């Protein structure tokens, strides 16, 4: 009688998992604008593929038990079998959950982290040299972006941050008052701006894009920084290298 229940639950689990895994194909993510975004999306999907069976296992057992063994009538006429659960089942459970945890820890956890922090890969927090370095300064409740040639972009001076495609762009992030956080949803990268120290992040945009077409192309403050926190954002535009040079030149000629 145990076997029949086990098979039924296994079938229910398989069915729910099949339905749940459809979520992997759902259109969950904002625009993919960079290498980092591709990586984030694939890791997210991978964890989703692993996580859904864990979740559906719990649902399957709870739902099956509640439907199969529910007591009808006013109160239970007898007790259930006194199963203690001190034999091999907990040990197997411990081995399985332990291996799953260690597996996820190593891949995509530590491997992804290593990639992110390594100076040899194309992107991340570890990339020391970049093709373009931009100093980003946060203050209540604005950003300014200083380009190497002296050009400055801020809410008052220029309406958007422009960066070239297929280049390593490094943001050196500072804050002059409270903790802010520089986040570009289209690139899936974020780093806090801490007063008193410089943090940085490097991105490698792979697609052209602009805020007008996709609102995830924006530099957003992600750390609560007081009154106008929700207004602290700027559009960002990714352009080809020649357009980028032209943009810099045009700002120069306007005297900005």
């Amino acid at each position, binding site marked *: 009688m145990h076997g029949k*229940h086990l098979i039924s639950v296994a079938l229910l689990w398989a069915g729910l998992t099949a339905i749940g895994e459809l979520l992997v194909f759902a259109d*969950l993510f904002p625009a993919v604008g960079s290498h980092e975004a591709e*990586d984030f999306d694939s*890791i*997210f999907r991978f*964890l989703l593929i692993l*996580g859904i069976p*864990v979740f559906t296992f*719990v*649902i399957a*057992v*709870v739902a099956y*038990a*509640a439907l199969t063994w*529910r*007591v009808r009538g006013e109160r239970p006429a*007898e*007790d*259930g*079998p*006194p*199963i*203690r*659960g001190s034999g091999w*089942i*907990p040990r197997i*459970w411990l081995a399985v*959950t332990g291996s799953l*945890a*260690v597996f*996820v*820890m190593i891949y*995509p*956890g*530590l491997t*992804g*982290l290593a990639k992110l*922090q390594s100076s040899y890969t194309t992107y991340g927090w*570890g990339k020391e040299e970049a093709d373009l370095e931009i100093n980003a300064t946060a203050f209540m409740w604005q950003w300014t972006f200083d380009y190497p040639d002296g050009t400055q972009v801020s809410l008052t001076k220029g309406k958007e941050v422009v960066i070239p495609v297929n280049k390593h762009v490094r943001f050196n992030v500072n804050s002059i*008052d*409270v903790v802010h956080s520089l*986040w570009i*949803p*289209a690139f*899936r*990268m*974020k780093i*806090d701006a*801490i007063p*008193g*120290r410089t*943090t940085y992040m490097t991105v490698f945009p792979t697609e052209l894009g602009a805020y007008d077409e996709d*609102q995830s192309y924006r530099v957003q403050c*992600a*750390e*609560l920084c*007081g009154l106008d*926190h*929700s*207004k602290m954002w700027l559009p960002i535009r990714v352009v080809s290298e020649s357009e980028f040079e032209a943009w810099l030149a045009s700002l120069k000629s306007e005297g900005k």
Partner: protein
Amino acid sequence: MYAVKSVFGALGLGLIGFYLGLGIVAILRWLFGYPDAWGGEINIIGGWVLGVFMWLMGIGMWGQWGREWFGLKTYTRQLPGWQRYFTFNTDHKVIGIQYLVTFMVVFFLAGALAMLMRLELAQSGHQFISNGQYNGAMGLHGILMVAVAVAAVIGGIGNYAVPLMIGAQDMAFPRLNALTFWLVPPVAVGLLATPFLGGIEHGWTAYPPLAIRANSAQILFDLSIITFGLTSILGALNFIVTIIYMRAPGLSWGRLPIFVWAMFATSWIALLYTQGFAAALLLVALDRLGFSFFNSANGGDPLLYQHVFWFYSHPAVYIMVLPGFGLALELIAHFSRKPLFAYRYAVAAFLGILGLSGVVWAHHMFTSGMPNYLHGPFLVATELISIPTGLIFLSALGTIWLGRLWLKPPMLFALAVIFNFACGGVTGIFLADVPTDIHLQDTYFVVAHFHYTIVGGEIFALFAAIYYYFPKMTGRMYNERLAKLHFWWMFIGFNATFFLMHLPGIKGMNRRIADYPSELDPLNLAVSLAGFFLGASFLVFIWNMVYSWVRGPVAEANPWQARTLEWQTSSPPPHENFPVPPVVSGGPYDYGVPGSKHATFPAAPSAGFAGAPAGGGGQ
């Protein structure tokens, strides 16, 4: 009406104390030649300290406790009926109900703030409230709900049930217990007064330097939370001593009900880590007075605060959910009519979480700019926590397997805890994993995740416990149809709201904002509507509780046929819980074991006791 007079009297004394404190500091400042003697935040600190002290003296600490220190006779008043809930009462059952009712009121207030926020967020752009009002509402919602989550189950259910479950007459330190509760009203007054000083603009986390530059509501926030930390630490100490020393004869550690084990682990976490938060906020308060711990402009370090803060506030998550897990397992065993599956592994899981909780805090700081070498160890430690958590699921699922599931409202809520926490646990993996956390940190994905764990894991368990203990506490039964209606309404509303809330987070909606890009409009409208649906479900609950407390049918002593000790005495229990002290002779969940008895009452007639078969038995 003595009780009402005494509360008003104590309030008056508290106010006098507050102004006296203000004045004393002002006089000192004037004597030492400071400009503007009345205008400093240090005046508020002086006022708070003296105000809280005099409030406590007025509410009964002087009469029942303080006089003793001066060689005078103490006195207690045994007030009848509802009046005892408004006095310095040392009965753990009274204190449990005081906590529970207080925090349910706070829960509904904070819930109303959530409704206000969802109203504003239903559409992009500004509709109803300003940015400043939004931040104030959000900060207050956050900190009030954290207070509810930390104290409602521990203070309410824990105080009520733990001494009963272990066969004790009361907590180990009854007067300390009463003091712990009566420290709460000043906290509530302090937090609810923050809007009059400009609102909490720094959220519940109070990161400096923002918290140092924020308006004076911040100082009230600090003082309230430090005071609240004091109740948490004193309460935890009391539980630890009670559980170690007050168990009935025969109630060995291996026979302890699982909820008591959960409370034991939780109390250790509260005792060990709460001081971190209190210290962090004390340092913020000092920074506001001109010190420089966290203010980088004068050589402090803002990241230091985040480490100290999360050193408490991540373990605090387990202060919230461990009692929830304990309650869920407890109820699942009783309502499945089976022994708790893998009991020893579940206990090990609680102790394992207690051990690991202290070494995972920096996973809240993956994007904070902390040194790179810290990410790996905290990723590993955080993922490790899934192993003991998995054992709790093993215990729950193993217990319902082949059981006789009695789907009463408490059981429905307990099963929902398992369901919701499974979802919250899976989404936690995305946040423990550094590469995905970089995008998801500080987005609505995090908001959805922690509401799944805290509301789904703990608040559902709180409702399970309220429905479970309602007949014990009041001696009356609630309307079961309304309770089931409440369950399904809340369960569907909750899942609709918070499952949907993951999506704007992934799509790029940051948290703690009054406004967001217009392309997220449809998702946010759906979340808001689901949120209002969820909010409305609590009206059913309030009606059911209030009506049934007054008019409900009289309940039997053991309506659930449970075997644990609290059900072997009358409902409501007499002043010292058991007319005859129990002697424990078996496990708490030995359902289906022929001839097993959890406890006997040696001096009582063997035919049974207060209408319930001693020890429950198979039937």
